[in-house]
Structures are given as C-alpha cells and as structure tokens.
C-alpha cells in the first residue's frame, strides 16, 4: 500500500525523465531533506555531529566520487585516500597563500587540483585494465602520501609535518578551525554535499553517464558504438577525483581540523571503497547507505557491550568490532552483491507489488 504506483501515468518524456517518476520517492526524499536540514540540526548533540553526521556526509561524498570512477566507469581505484589528501593539501595551500579566500571557493577550487592529478594518474587506464589498474592506482596512493611527507612546502615546513586548520569565518560564522561550532560545519558540509550530489545525479543519468556505464560494461563494445574511450575514461577520472578532492578538503577543514600525511594512507582508501561497494556500485543512493553502515554502525556497536553491561575490555570490544564489521561485509555481499542500494530497490519492488509475492 505504501508504494502504490498504479495510477501515476507519465504523459511526456519530460515527466518520465523527472528525478522521481514515482511520487512516493519524492516524498521520501523530501522527508530525508527535512530530516537533514531541520530535524537533525535541532536535535543533534555535538557528539552526534562530530562522530556521526559530519563524517557520514563527507565519506558519502568521497564514496560518490569513487563510485563515479569505479561504479559508473568501471575503473577500480585503490587510491582514493591519496586524492582526498591532494584536495586537503590544496585547500590548505590555498587558504595559507590567500588567507582572505572564501572557504567555499577554496574547497571547490581544491577539487580541481585533485582532478588534474587524477587525470594524470588516469592516463595509464587507457592501456591497463582490471586489477592491474587497481594496483596501479596504488602507485598514486603510495607516491602521493610519500610526497605529502617529504615536500615541506605542502605543509609550510611545520616541524611535525602536519597541517593545522586555522579559524575561518564567512559573514561572521566560523566554519573551520578549533572554535567552529559543529552545527556550522554540519551545514557547510551538508550544502556542499547536496550540491555535488545534485550535479552527480545529472551527470550520471545523461549522455556522459551512459558513456561511462558503457565503458564499464564492455569497453570494446563502447568503442565500437562510437564512444571515445580515452575521453570517457579521463573524464571519469577528472570528475571522480574532483569530487574526492572536495571530500578531502571537507574532511580536513570541516571535520578533522588537522592532518598528517599518514591520514591519507591506504586504510582511508579502503574505507571509502567499502562504502562504495557495500552501498552499491553504480548507485548514488548507495553511497549514503554505505557510509551510514560503515561509519556510523561501528560507533554504535562499540557502545553496545557497555550498554548491555557486558564486562568486556575496550580492546576486546574493538577486536569484536573489527570481526563484526568483517563479517557484516561478507554477509551483505552474500545477501546482495549489488549492495544496499539494490537491497532497497528490491524492497521497494516488493512494496510496490505488496501484498502479492510476485
């Protein structure tokens, strides 16, 4: 009953192209937006902002970037962390070279630096495929992190080799730095993420998105239907690295407040990859679901033993936690290899035909 689509007719292609041809989906989205823009800000505590909401959003964005490359264009990348790093260091340099720069502009501009480097490391994808390419992206990963460590200019030669985010305000509201209130940061991140998601949805459902998917599903055939592989792949690297770069800038400037090179090392890349895959490759929604599962769930589970009063040491809890996350990943893959987004789609199908089984 919830998802009755009967009776919703489309009379033009335009209507069919609407983001949500089914009315209930639009309602659901509206509900989520209200939740994100109104309910959470009014109710969430600083802990919830800083350990759940903000990281979930930022990780979703990074996963979205990766998803464009891996899920849509089919180029597996393990270098996400380093590209986030590029975004973060670019933003840091921009803000220190031009201290008066608007933070939003800096964040959006730093994406371009990461995009350019992404394209450079994407060039081999024209020859190298599959897992070979995936390992090749590790070259970017390790080389860039090494560079973050060795190239003093990047961190303004600070003794520790780390970067620190100063206080940055726009129109009297502080958005970054130690004094920034979590709610401001949340809104900044939320708006950026919403904007980029909107753009990403548009890109992926139009001509460019189709070309990417074609390259992913069968690149030879894509070429034989007239798609310029080089252009399509490099564009995917560009857009993906751009988004990842922006996510990296947000990661450091609106959440962490400080960063050292090792932060962008391979575990970060894997984390983002988990999110994209568990969420569902080739899906935008999946990134959010994945981020909720991978980022928020551990925070929640780690509180469970204490809440239940189980006498476990924090180390054991953590070990159990790692085990559970590992098991959950496997479980979800078995349950639905195409990720949470597909799980949701199937559930939705069932809701539409409910109460009939087929």
């Amino acid at each position, binding site marked *: 009953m919830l998802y009755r689509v009967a009776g919703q007719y489309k009379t033009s292609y335009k209507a069919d192209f609407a983001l949500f041809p089914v009315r209930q989906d639009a309602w659901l989205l509206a509900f989520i937006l209200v939740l994100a823009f109104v309910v959470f800000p009014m109710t969430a505590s600083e802990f919830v902002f800083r350990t759940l909401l903000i990281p979930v959003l930022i990780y979703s964005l990074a996963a979205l970037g990766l998803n464009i490359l891996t899920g849509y264009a089919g180029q597996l990348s393990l270098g996400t962390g380093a590209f986030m790093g590029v975004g973060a260091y670019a933003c840091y340099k921009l803000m220190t070279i031009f201290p008066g720069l608007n933070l939003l502009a800096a964040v959006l501009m730093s994406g371009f630096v990461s995009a350019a480097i992404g394209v450079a490391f994407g060039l081999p994808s024209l020859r190298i495929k599959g897992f070979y390419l995936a390992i090749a992206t590790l070259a970017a990963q390790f080389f860039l992190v090494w560079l973050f460590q060795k190239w003093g200019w990047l961190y303004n030669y600070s003794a520790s080799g780390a970067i620190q985010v100063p206080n940055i305000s726009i129109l009297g509201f502080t958005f970054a730095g130690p004094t920034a209130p979590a709610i401001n940061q949340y809104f900044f991140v939320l708006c950026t993420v919403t904007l980029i998601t909107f753009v990403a*949805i548009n890109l992926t459902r*139009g001509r460019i998105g*189709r070309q990417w*998917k074609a390259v992913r599903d069968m690149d*030879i055939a894509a*070429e*034989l239907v007239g798609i310029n*592989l080089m252009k399509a792949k490099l564009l995917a690297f560009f857009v993906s690295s751009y988004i990842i770069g922006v996510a990296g800038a947000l990661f450091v400037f609106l959440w962490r407040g400080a960063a050292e090179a090792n932060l962008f090392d391979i575990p970060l890349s894997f984390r983002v990859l988990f999110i994209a895959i568990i969420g569902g490759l080739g899906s935008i929604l999946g990134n959010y679901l994945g981020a909720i599962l991978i980022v928020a769930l551990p925070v929640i589970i780690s509180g469970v033993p204490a809440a239940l009063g189980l006498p476990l040491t924090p180390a054991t809890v953590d070990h159990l936690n790692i085990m559970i996350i590992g098991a959950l990943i496997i479980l979800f893959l078995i349950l639905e290899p195409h990720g949470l987004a597909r799980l949701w789609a199937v559930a939705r199908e069932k809701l539409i035909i409910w109460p009939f089984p087929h």
Partner: protein
Amino acid sequence: MNAHTAGTQFIAADDDGVAKGDTLLEVKNVSLSFGGVKAITNISFDVKKGEIRAIIGPNGAGKTSMLNVINGFYTPQEGTITFRGQQRRAMKPHHAVRQGIARTFQNVALFKGMTTLDNIMAGRSVHMKRNIGWQMLWHGPALAEEIEHREKVEEIIDFLEIEHIRRTPVGKLPYGLQKRVELGRALAMEPSLLLLDEPMAGMNLEEKEDMSRFIIDVNQQRGTTIALIEHDMGVVMDLSDRVVVLDYGKKIADGAPDEVKNDQSVIDAYLGVAH
C-alpha cells in the same frame, strides 16, 4: 543528419553522398593474420549502396574478422578499405562509427548492466552534443537534447517491439531479445552501413521471420546498406542481393544467391548438401 525528415519514419533518410547502386564500401586485397594464423588472405569485394550483402562461409573462415577489419577493430597487414570514397587501412573504431558504420556482434556485446533504453541511447552518443556544463545542470538544453533523442529511440523501440523490456537490464534478457536490442543500438547510430554478425543465431523460426522483416525494412525504408553474416541459408538466400563466400580466409565465390548456391566449391566447403 537531417532532422527535418517528413513522415513518421523513425530514422532520417540516409544522405551520405553516395547514390544508390554505387559502391559504398570497397575492400581491396586485404590480408590479416594473427601470429601464425592467417585469418584473411588477399580478399577483395565491394558493397553497393542500398544492397543487402551476405558474407557466408564455414566456421573459422574469417567472416567476423572481415567485419572487424571493416569497422577498424583490426588493422589488416595488407590491403585497403575504401568507404564513401575515402581510402584507409587503419582507423579507430569510434571514427568508423562517426563515418557511418555500425554493427552488431556475434557474441552479444551489449552493456549488460544498463537497461534496454540506456543501451540504445548509448548508441546515440555520437549524435549528442551538449557539453558537460549543461549536463551538470540537466534542466534546459541538456534535457531538451535528451528528449529529442529519446523520441528517436522510442521509435526504434516501437519498431523492434521491445517496449515491454525498456527498463530491464539487458543482462537478464533472453538471448534473442538481446540480439534485438543490439540491432536497436546499431540502428540508433543512424549508420549508412550496417554490419550484422549472425543476427539470427539462436532464434526460432518465428523470431527469424521477425528479424528478417526488421532487416528488410531498415534496408528498404531507410536505404541503409547492410552487410550480413548468417549461417541460416534460408535467410541468406531470401534476403540478400549478393553473397560473398569465404573459406579459410580465401574468397571462393561472389555473386547472386542463386549462383552461389549452385557453385560446387561452395557446396563442398560450406553447404554440404544442396538446399
């Protein structure tokens, strides 16, 4: 492409500057080998504008390789290809598409994770122009373009009678329907030369009849030139205007279906019993 064609015909009439009956494609002395294997040896033939040209021959004769040479996927070691008066040996496949060569594949090469609609829309990529900026906005010119092309694609979908699977990911479709979607994708490219590699393999009679009808209609109504590989002799003899026969990379016969059918070397090499 001419966008202002009158009538309900879904594809614009083909105006590639070659008059009907003239040579559209000429293959001259082409040879191709892979390491030691000689797939094609010194083959020449032509395809005339507006005809249905069949290529037949036993398995492994080099038919598919021939199509691959024509659309630029393989580069022959010797010989030249002349298409619409332009001579070449090597070219990138996507350039061939831009010149007006489209094809379907022996082992279905669809984009398995995409829906029927998206697959056919992907075929229209070459004709879509809006840049990434507009695409990001979606509303406005990008949407208008999308709708314009969607209309054409819907006509193809109607024509091929695949409305009911419009939104099904093609990977899940039965083989026969996949072949039809593939034809749809090739049609969406609005080619002047359409290469079909065993379009009816794995179909039952009824479906073959349907497919034949589609092919004839494309050929007659739009004037699209077709080169066709097929193992069903009934289909080949009924549809094609001229037939070229390959055997282990060599051309052994070339001519009207009836001549070829009765050619002794063709019977020996390929047909077995006379049909």
